[in-house]
Every structure is written in C-alpha cells, then in structure tokens.
C-alpha cells in the first residue's frame, strides 16, 4: 500500500473517521479498526449506560450487549447503519434500547435485590488510576458519588437527557432525534433537570454547592 501523498489522506490515515473504521472492519475484517472504534467511544457509551443503571457490573454487561448488537447489525445489514448517519448516535440508540430493556426487566423483578452484584466487581477495578493522593481521591470520589446520587433522583426523562448531553456529548438536536421528541422538549427537559439538580444539591446538608470545582 503506497503512502498517501495528499495531506488530507495522511491525516485520515492517522486519525481515521468512524466511517473509515467501520469500512475497514466490515469489508476487510480488521479487528484493530473495530477496537479503535470501541475505545474511541467507550467513555461516552459506558458513561451513559452507567448513569442509566447505576451499577457498574450491569453497565459492563450492557456495554458488551450493545456492541454485540452493533456487530450483528454490521455483519448482517450494514445499510441500516449507513442510513443512520453518525456512528456514535447509532450506537447510543442501541445502548439506550439495551438500558431500557434492562430497566424494564428490573422493574418486573424489583423484589429481587441487586445489591449483591456489587460484590462481583473486582477490587482492582475500583481503584482509580490517576496519581492523586488518597485524601483528594477520596474527597473527589465522595463528591462524585453524591452528585451521581442526586442525578438518580431526577425524573427518568430529565436524567436521560442530562446523561446524553454530559456523558455521551450529544447535541440537543441529536438527543431530540434519539429520544424521538422535539428539540424544544429536549431543551425543556434539560433545563428542568439542571434546576431540579440544583435544588436537590442545595437542599442537602452534605455538601455546599459552592464547594464543587474547588
């Protein structure tokens, strides 16, 4: 394979687009391309799933389930992806369906406790991988878990929009398309989510709102 002469081609070779990676996997069976694709969007997809189910092991299962569905769809009928447009939006739609399926089944079996699942999580998985001191890490971790608990208290529609905007980095227009509502509805839900979240945090005597970000 000749080295590309055009600058655009060289940039494309170094930083291929999602579409190019999908083509490399589907047409040539290049699993490295698929790994790059998964790793590129892992935080967005997993962050959204984790925010929806609030259970790390379940989020991992749903993450795998999502990509198994993606692989199946790509192998069988790639046209369904091509018509969707943006790869991340397409994957997040599949992830959302997987999360909603899980939430519905959990609602059906809500008498069964899921707290035991936390025991299956490896201790090493819980360790943070940054180089901060243990006090700072503990403080940040407490704050983060507190905010996530506050997010959990939001109504489902508002929480979904907030997660799609903050975890998946979708625009409001993309969120509206994904959740099958108008952009005004998506904006309204986001606005109420932020106001409600502010109210929940303010009403808590655990942490002052002004403490965050310091």
């Amino acid at each position: 394979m000749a080295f590309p002469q055009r600058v655009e081609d060289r940039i494309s070779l170094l930083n291929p687009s999602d579409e190019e990676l999908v083509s490399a996997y589907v047409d040539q069976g290049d699993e490295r391309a698929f790994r790059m694709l998964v790793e590129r969007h892992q935080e967005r997809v997993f962050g959204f799933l984790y925010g929806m189910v609030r259970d790390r092991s379940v989020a991992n299962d749903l993450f795998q389930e999502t990509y198994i569905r993606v692989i199946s769809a790509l192998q069988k009928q790639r046209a369904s992806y091509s018509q969707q447009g943006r790869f991340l939006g397409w994957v997040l739609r599949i992830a959302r369906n997987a999360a909603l399926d899980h939430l519905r089944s959990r609602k059906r079996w809500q008498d069964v406790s899921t707290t035991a699942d936390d025991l299956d999580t490896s201790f090493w998985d819980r360790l943070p991988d940054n180089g901060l001191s243990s006090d700072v890490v503990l403080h940040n971790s407490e704050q983060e878990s507190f905010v996530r608990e506050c997010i959990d208290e939001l109504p489902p529609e508002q929480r979904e929009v907030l997660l799609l905007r903050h975890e998946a980095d979708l625009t409001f227009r993309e969120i509206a398309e994904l959740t099958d509502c108008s952009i005004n509805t998506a904006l309204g839900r986001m606005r109420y989510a932020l106001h409600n979240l502010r109210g929940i945090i303010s009403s808590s005597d655990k942490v002052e709102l002004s403490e965050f970000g310091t």
Partner: protein
Amino acid sequence: MEEKKSILLHLYGEKDAEGDLRSLLKDEELQSEHQALSEVKFHLDHLGRSKPDATSIDRVVAHAARASASTEIGDRRGDRPPLWRTRPIRKVLIPAMSLAAVIVIAVWFGYFSSTTDEALPASAQIAADEMTAEAESLLRARPVVSGHAVVSTGRATDPLLVWNYAESLRELSRRIETMRPADDLDWGARSIPLETLPGGTQPGIHQASSRR
C-alpha cells in the same frame, strides 16, 4: 421561555452569537437563570469519566473477530432483491374469469354457426329456388298494348301475366268528358243533378242495396 432555552443553547456552545447572549443577559431574570444553570453545569462537567472494564472491551473485540471470521465477504448479505407485491386474489381472479367467459362465448357462437349451416340445407334450398323462379317469371312479363296482351315468346308452358287497360281508359275518358262542363259553373248557377255524375262502371246514383 424561548429566551431561557436560548440561554441553555449558549451555555452548551450550540449557539455562537455572543452579542445575542449579551443582550439576553441585560435582563436580570435571564441573568440569574444563566448563573444558576452555569453553576450546575460547571459541577457536572467536572464529574469523572467512567470507563468500562478492559475485559469488556476485550470480549467485545474477540466477538467482533469471531463474527468477522465466520462470515465470508462473499457470503455477506447485500441489499435484498426487490419483492413483488402480492396482488390480492380478487384482482387476479376477476380479469381471468372475464377473459375465460369471453373465450367460452366466442367458441360457443362459432360452433353453433357452423352446425346451423350444415343442419338446414334442404328447407333453405327449397325457399331459395322458389324465390328465384318467382323473380324470373316477373322479369319475363310484358305489358298489354291496346287491349291485346303481348306475350313473351319464351317457354310456352310458363304462366303469363296479362294486363288489360282498355276498360279503365274508357271509363276515365268518360269521367273527364262529364266533368268538363262543370268548369263553366259559377256562383248562382243551377246545380247539377247528382245522377249526371259518373258513379262507377254504370253512370248515375244507385241505391246502396242495389250495389251488389
């Protein structure tokens, strides 16, 4: 409400016009809205990013490799061929039955027309012969001149038609002569007795009982 949504779009960088935001923030209510939302957003932005377990990614990639290996490139399903829309049986059956009925009727008429030509030869032939003979006899007929019938000299055995106009001509002549003086009549003239008018082969008025 629209201004508040516009502030949200500005906050998330989905609306670029900076001047528009400044004009919005001149309103105190909108300014407090912007401050409240940006405060919460700031804290949400600083939440840590969650990553899946490395084993999850490895499993996904392994599954992708297996799926790719098990599916040959040539075996991959392309676009499906176009499907012919199944027509309702009613739409097919009615034209087919109509066509069949037309064919049956045409065959039936064709069959009976051929059989009637063959079945009635004798009666039709006799009628045609009679009509031909009658026409020929009419053609052979000749008019009578001055009381003598001129007979065609064809076959002697043929029946001949004879017209005798002599008597009719004489009667007509008498009528004309009788009516001629009536041209000289005028108003006030004497009436002509009815007995003088011609009444048939015998002149004069006859009683109805005597007309036999």
